[in-house]
């Protein structure tokens, strides 16, 4: 959907995608998560892991994280979103901050991770799509209930 720059309609659509990504992951909606990542490459900067397309989405959401009755028991709060739509109107970048909360039987509700996303979007067949996401980890808490394999990243994050 192409709109004049003054109306920020493109930005609303892109902001909804950013929110939907968190929703789909936290509610275990594999179909929607896979669809949102169909044209995307998602990279975890801290570990170098990369997940590409719908199949990558499946790996990211189900095999690289711990699930409890099929759900990650996380809440990804995404905020401080700033979007830049290119003058051509068919590409955009965005940066946002995120904080992950988790509660499990062995983990009282707490923040486990905080970081930021650097995203790129493009119009594909006249619909905005995520094309890449770099996920940066800035403050690290207890990841053992969330990640299938906790990377040796003690040097990453804390007071970095």
């Amino acid at each position, binding site marked *: 959907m192409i709109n004049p720059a003054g109306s920020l*309609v493109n930005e609303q659509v892109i902001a909804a995608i950013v*929110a939907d990504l968190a929703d789909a992951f936290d509610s275990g909606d594999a179909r929607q998560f896979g669809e949102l990542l169909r044209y995307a490459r998602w990279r975890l900067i801290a570990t170098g892991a*990369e997940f590409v397309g719908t199949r990558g989405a499946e790996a990211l959401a189900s095999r690289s994280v711990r699930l409890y009755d099929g759900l990650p028991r996380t809440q990804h709060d995404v905020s401080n979103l700033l979007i830049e739509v290119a003058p051509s109107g068919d590409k955009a970048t965005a940066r946002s901050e995120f904080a992950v909360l988790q509660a499990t039987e062995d983990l*009282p509700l707490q923040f486990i991770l905080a970081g930021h996303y650097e995203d790129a979007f493009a119009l594909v067949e006249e619909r905005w799509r995520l094309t890449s996401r770099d996920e940066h980890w800035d403050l690290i808490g207890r990841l053992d209930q969330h990640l299938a394999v906790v990377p040796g990243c003690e040097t990453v994050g804390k007071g970095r």
Partner: protein
Amino acid sequence: MNREEVAEARRQVRGIISAYFNALDTGDMRALGEVFRYGRTRAQSSRSGAQVIAEPDEPYEGSERIIQQFVTHNYFYDGTPSTKHFTTNLTMEIHHETNRATSRSRFTVVQARPGFPLQPIVTGRYVDSFEWRAGRWWLVDRFEDCFLWGDVRHHLVDELRRRLQLPEFERRAPRAEIPDVPDHS
């Protein structure tokens, strides 16, 4: 609805949601009641959406009932619940056919008290519906799903916590599913 009307709807929805949380956290009953003048609220609690652990309340409808619910369900300290309801991931859609708007958002409630360090106590999701009446948008329905639970003993009254069967009264250990082969893409 034209583009400008949609943008104005966004601004009003944003304002209503902001007014709601500011009213809750400052204990402003009048402002809280005003948000729900034409509205009702239904809540459920679930563990991570997997299982509804308490039947949804009867809906609370209208200003007086909402205020009564708020006052009877929560603890107050010098007139406020000593919380901050922090909301994120707010999106809105307009349904042109029915002249309604719906919004989705996440909330994280944090609380601090003497002897209770600042911490998140419950998180969840809202789905809200709005209608245009008498020249502006009004909240008409709020569905609240409490998703991840922490220590709400300083926030929700005993009787409510008992009814919600929260972990401190009844623990059930979910079995964690750890994959055999970790992903190393």
